[in-house]
């Protein structure tokens, strides 16, 4: 079976691990547990009648002390840039990470995932700002690892982008 590696990239506590846990294991926990290094999971999706095995690399969230280790990105077919909608600084971090990732592995498909849509009352990212990002040609999808909103969609969408190449 065809396998493809996808990396989850973003600032710390944006919900990368929760998105993978929801998608692969259908579970969600309110407790925040930081990721050290990388957690790897696997899920099979169906794309146009063909099975594709997604190897999901959930990388630790970048912060002041831990910078993105580029060796983790090697061989990625795509990546998800994850932002916490309630923390604007995580969007700025996503922009800088996107440049780093593209410099490291080239122009592979990616999505901007704005997570925590169950907390929209607390969001610090305006619709107009998202529209500007979309105008740049980026695909932006809102998710909630808590409710499951958009979770299947991001992985299905990125798998389809991989297969289109």
């Amino acid at each position, binding site marked *: 079976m065809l*396998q493809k590696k996808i990396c989850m990239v973003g600032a710390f506590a944006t919900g990368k691990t929760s998105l993978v846990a929801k998608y692969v294991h259908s579970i969600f926990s309110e407790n*925040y547990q930081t990721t*050290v*290094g*990388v957690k790897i999971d696997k899920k099979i999706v169906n794309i146009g009648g063909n099975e594709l*095995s997604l190897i999901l690399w959930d990388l630790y*969230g970048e*912060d002041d002390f831990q910078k993105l280790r580029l*060796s983790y990105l*090697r061989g990625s077919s795509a990546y998800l840039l994850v932002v916490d909608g309630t923390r604007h600084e995580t969007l700025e971090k996503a922009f800088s990470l996107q440049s780093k990732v593209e410099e490291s592995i080239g122009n592979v498909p990616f999505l901007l995932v704005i997570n925590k849509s169950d907390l929209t009352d607390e969001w610090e990212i305006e619709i107009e700002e998202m529209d500007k990002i979309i105008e740049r040609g980026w695909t932006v999808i809102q998710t909630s690892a808590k409710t499951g909103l958009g979770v299947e969609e991001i992985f299905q969408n990125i798998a389809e982008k991989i297969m289109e190449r």
Partner: protein
Amino acid sequence: MFDIPIPIMNHLLDFLRENRSLAYVLVDKDGCLLKWGGNLAAYGISNLQKGEKIVQKIFFLEGLLPLDGSPLFLPCMQTQYGICADVHVFQSKEGDWVLLLDATWDEIHISLIQQQNNNASFFK
């Protein structure tokens, strides 16, 4: 290059074998398994067969092989088996070696520090 006395080499090897669950596989340039050994079972890896495609058995190697020169170091890699491993990948004439060393102790201690740091960031 400095010489390392054989007793030190042997001691280090014993230490890694006993405390870090040393395990390895050797893969050819077509991604087929040539050799394996050590405590692979500790990482949930079993039933390997010579000549089989390694990414079908050790799925986290997808995209990593073959190496194109520089060695790779992937610290604290957790697979679905729950064990955290430091993964080293390096080349030789025979093929690419993948070396696994248990990093559970590091993972537990780093996560404690990292968790406190990240929690503190929320209150800044």
